[in-house]
Every structure is written in C-alpha cells, then in structure tokens.
C-alpha cells in the first residue's frame, strides 16, 4: 500500500518568494482584507470630497486670510486622517488574526525558521497598501479638483510640489500598515494592536497639545501621526522618521517571534 495511501508530493523547500506567495494567498482569501481596504478608500475619497465641496461652496464668504489658507492639494488629502484607521486595522489583523485563530501554529510548523513569515507579511501588506493608496490618492485628487473646477480654484497635478505631496501620502499609509503588522506580531492580539495604534496615532496628539506650546510643539512634530501629515517636518524627514518608528517595531516583533514560544 505504498504510494497509494497519500501519494507523493514534490515539496521543494522553503524560500522567501514561496512564503511571499503563501502570504499573498492568505491576504486575498479573507474578507477582512477587502472590507478594510474598501472602508479606507471610501473614507479617503468621501471625506476629501465632502470637505472640498463645503469649503468651495463657502469660498466667496471667506476672509483674505482664509483664502490664503485655501490649499486645493491639502483638501484632496483631507480624508487620510480617517482612512489611516482602516489601514491600521488591516495591518494589525494581518498578524493578530494568526494568533486569535490559531493559524500561527500551522504557519510556523510549515515555516519553522519563522522570520520569513514576518518579512513576507510585511512585503505583501506593504505592497498592497502602497498600490491601493497611490490609486486612492490620485483618484481623490482628480475628484476634488473636479469639484473645485466650477469655482476656478483647482490646481493641475503638474503644479509645483503636488505630485511629491501625493505619492508621499501613499508612502505614509504604507508605513502605517507596516507598523501595524509589526504591532499585531508583537502584541499577538487584535484588541491590543488596534488600541495601541489608536492610542499613539489618535489619542497622543490631543494630549500633547495640552502641554505648554514650546514643549508640546517639539514633541508633536515627531509623533508618528504628525511626521508626514503635520507639515512641520520636511516631506523626506517625515517619511524617514516614520520609517525609523517602523523599523523599531518590526525589530521588536522579529525578536519576539524568533525567541518566544508560538
């Protein structure tokens, strides 16, 4: 009853590209991926369009100072603050759901070296979020400029600094996703991961704002949620600081994954 029992399997061995393929299968075969991405896209474009429409409608009543403050590109990106919440949930779930479901035992038994699972999840989630964010940012730009066009307030995508501002927002959302994947791996809990993310990105800023402004402002610009969105650091510095935060959390997650029982 030799090969007849279970047949032969040409198992070739574990490589990073194969684990990436596996993680891509995992990401695209659960509903939460589509749900969180849909919410992120809808919030980004919806909120941006809504704010743009309201402000454009009120523009003729604005003071000179308010008019000077009117930034068509900024309005195309207004929805990012809420959209990042859904991106964060997507990132946390990518890893925490492995623990909540018990899937992690299957995953690590198949890849006992463990770390390729973390790298692959970061790559798969990162690329997915970057592509979706980039498309979303561009669509949001064209939608909001179309809303502004009847008021002759729109700007061209080729105008100075516009493209840089748009694509770096996609990079920022990708960095949020990577931090959250690592948080899910580090804390091994969906609730823990999401509340840490919300605490740092949404609760810390208003608390910091209560500090005397000389201390508060210098802390504020380095908070993860303000690095890129706060406009107090240069675009590149903001992205670099975010990358630093991501690296710290990823290293902590890697250490925990490698050295503690699953």
């Amino acid at each position, binding site marked *: 009853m030799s090969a007849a029992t*279970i047949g032969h399997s040409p198992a070739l*061995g574990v490589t990073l590209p194969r684990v990436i393929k*596996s993680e891509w299968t995992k990401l695209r075969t659960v509903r939460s991926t589509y749900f969180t991405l849909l919410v992120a896209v809808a919030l980004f474009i919806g909120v941006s369009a809504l704010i743009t429409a309201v402000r454009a409608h009120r523009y003729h009543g604005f003071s000179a100072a308010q008019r000077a403050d009117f930034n068509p590109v900024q309005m195309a990106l207004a929805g990012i603050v809420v959209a990042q919440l859904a991106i964060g949930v997507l990132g946390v779930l990518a890893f925490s759901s*492995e623990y909540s479901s*018990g899937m992690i*035992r299957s995953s690590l038994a198949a890849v006992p070296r463990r770390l390729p699972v973390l790298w692959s999840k970061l790559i798969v989630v990162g690329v997915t979020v970057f592509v979706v964010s980039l498309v979303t940012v561009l669509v949001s730009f064209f939608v909001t400029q179309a809303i502004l066009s009847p008021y002759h307030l729109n700007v061209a995508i080729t105008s100075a600094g516009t493209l840089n501002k748009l694509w770096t927002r996609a990079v920022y959302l990708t960095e949020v996703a990577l931090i959250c994947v690592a948080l899910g791996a580090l804390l091994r809990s969906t609730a823990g991961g999401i509340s840490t993310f919300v605490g740092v990105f949404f609760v810390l800023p208003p608390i910091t704002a209560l500090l005397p402004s000389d201390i508060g402002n210098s802390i504020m610009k380095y908070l993860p949620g303000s690095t890129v969105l706060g406009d107090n650091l240069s675009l590149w510095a903001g992205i670099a600081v975010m990358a630093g935060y991501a690296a710290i959390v990823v290293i902590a997650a890697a250490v925990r994954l490698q050295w503690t029982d699953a």
Partner: protein
Amino acid sequence: MTKHYGKKVAVDALSFEVQPGIVTGFLGPNGAGKSTTMRTIAGLDEPTSGRVWVNGQEYHKSRVPMAELGILLEAKSVHGGRSARNHLLALAQTNGIDSKRVDQVIEFVGLRQVARQHAGSFSMGMGQRLGIAAALLGDPQVVVLDEPVNGLDPEGVLWVRNSLKALANEGRTVFVSSHLMTEMALTATHLIVIGRGHLIADTTVEEFVSRAKTRGVTVRSPDAAMLANLVKMTDGAGVIADADDILHVEGLTSEQIGTIAWQNHIRIFELTPQRSSLEDAFMQLTHDSVDFRSEQLEELAVAS
C-alpha cells in the same frame, strides 16, 4: 527534554525515541504533557532544556520542513474565515508544493464536497480531517498527530486507524497521542506512556497488554463455605467471601478451583476469571500521575 511554563513543569526530563515503520502510541492522562511534547517536536515551543531531533536534525533547521514532518495539533490551527482549500493552498505554497497535491489530500481525507466552505463552519470531525490533510501535504517522513480521533464518528475513527497503519507500513514514523488506551491498543505497535511529564513506560503494546494479568476468580456456589475451606488448604490461595454464596479466590486458576469442586461434589453455578482490562492497566500505571483525580474532586466537594 524538559519544559517549564513559568513555575509549572509540563515535561520533566522526558527522553524517548520513536521508530519508523510502526505506529507509536503516546499515552497519558489529560495534562500529562502530551501536547507540550508534540509542540516542541514541531519547534513551536522551545524546550527549557534538552533537544528534540526529527530525522536526525532539529526541525527548525530543515530545508523542506513539510517533507520531514507533518503535524496535527490538538488545538485548532486554522483561520475560520478562509476556505479549507485556500488554507491548505497557503500552507502548501510555503514549501513549494503545487495545488494538484492540495486537491489530492483533500480527496484523501474526504473533504472534496466542502473544500470551498469556510473552515470556521466545519464540525469538529471535519476540522480533524482538515488538520490531517495539512499534516500530509508534504508527504512527510514523520507524522505526528495529537488526539486525531477526537470528535470523529465511528467511520472516521476506523479511517484514521487504517490510515495510520498504512502510513507506518510505508516506512514512515507515526506518532499518535491519545488518552484512550483501548484506541491505542487497536492502532499502535509500540507505546510511550507519560504522566505528569515523566516517562512511565516505553514498551510494546503486547508487553503492556500482558501486564493486564488475572486478578482472581469469582465463584458462586450454594456450598460456598465448604468450598472456601477446601480452597484455603491449597498452597498460595487466598479467599474472600463476598457474600453468602459468592467467593473471590486469588492465586488459583479457574481450572484448579473447578477441579477441587468436582472432586468434592460441590455444586458451582458460576466460575469467572476477573481480568483487569487494558484501561485498568493504564489506570494503575498512571494512577499517581493524574493531575485531577475524581477522588480529589470528591474531597473538594466534601470540603466545600
């Protein structure tokens, strides 16, 4: 191999070897450390001290892990929102196993009809079959299954039993845990018995079965008192009168007792050798190493 979880010692200096080509049963009461041992085999838990070798190397160093070891753990290890087929596909892809193989194992475990359904909707028996499918994906040399018949219907139990024997006949190492002695006696050739993290027995099933020795003979006779006196005169015999017409005789076979009765014209209505069952042998062996025994629970109940 020793494993502590905080202050609790789950496995204490446990050492044994599992041979290829036969089914080895891993027996122990609940909480004996069976699942812990199996988790360390797959490298999910690191032993506090000692090592586990799979095919001559530590599992995490394996280049083609799923061809070395296929494991079914007792705890659920599936994302409930993913279909059974996609679950297996994702696992297969990590080791470069193609999707044809995925369909082959789905067929083998009999889940073809439900392969596209969410694993979360599966009954316990279907979940066990899915876990066994995952363990077999890589055509592994070593198959480790933690309580594989849990939740299976009789037909499923028989299927697992036959599959395990077939896998062993192919020269694979098959290591299966259970807390049911009778199930193991039907499936396994060799037994590893543990209790409270200690090795209690590392023996063949045959040898283990022979420990289930005769524990006396029950005799029912209207002339019980007379028979008792006669039996007592035989060397090495002990008699307890259980009731007016019932005796419990130790140290003599039922043939010897029957002969004594016939020679003395004593009527006998019943002559029953009392064998301790496999389950009894197992219970005797592990008696001191059960974490929660019912008498303790009774004491607790009385105390409260």
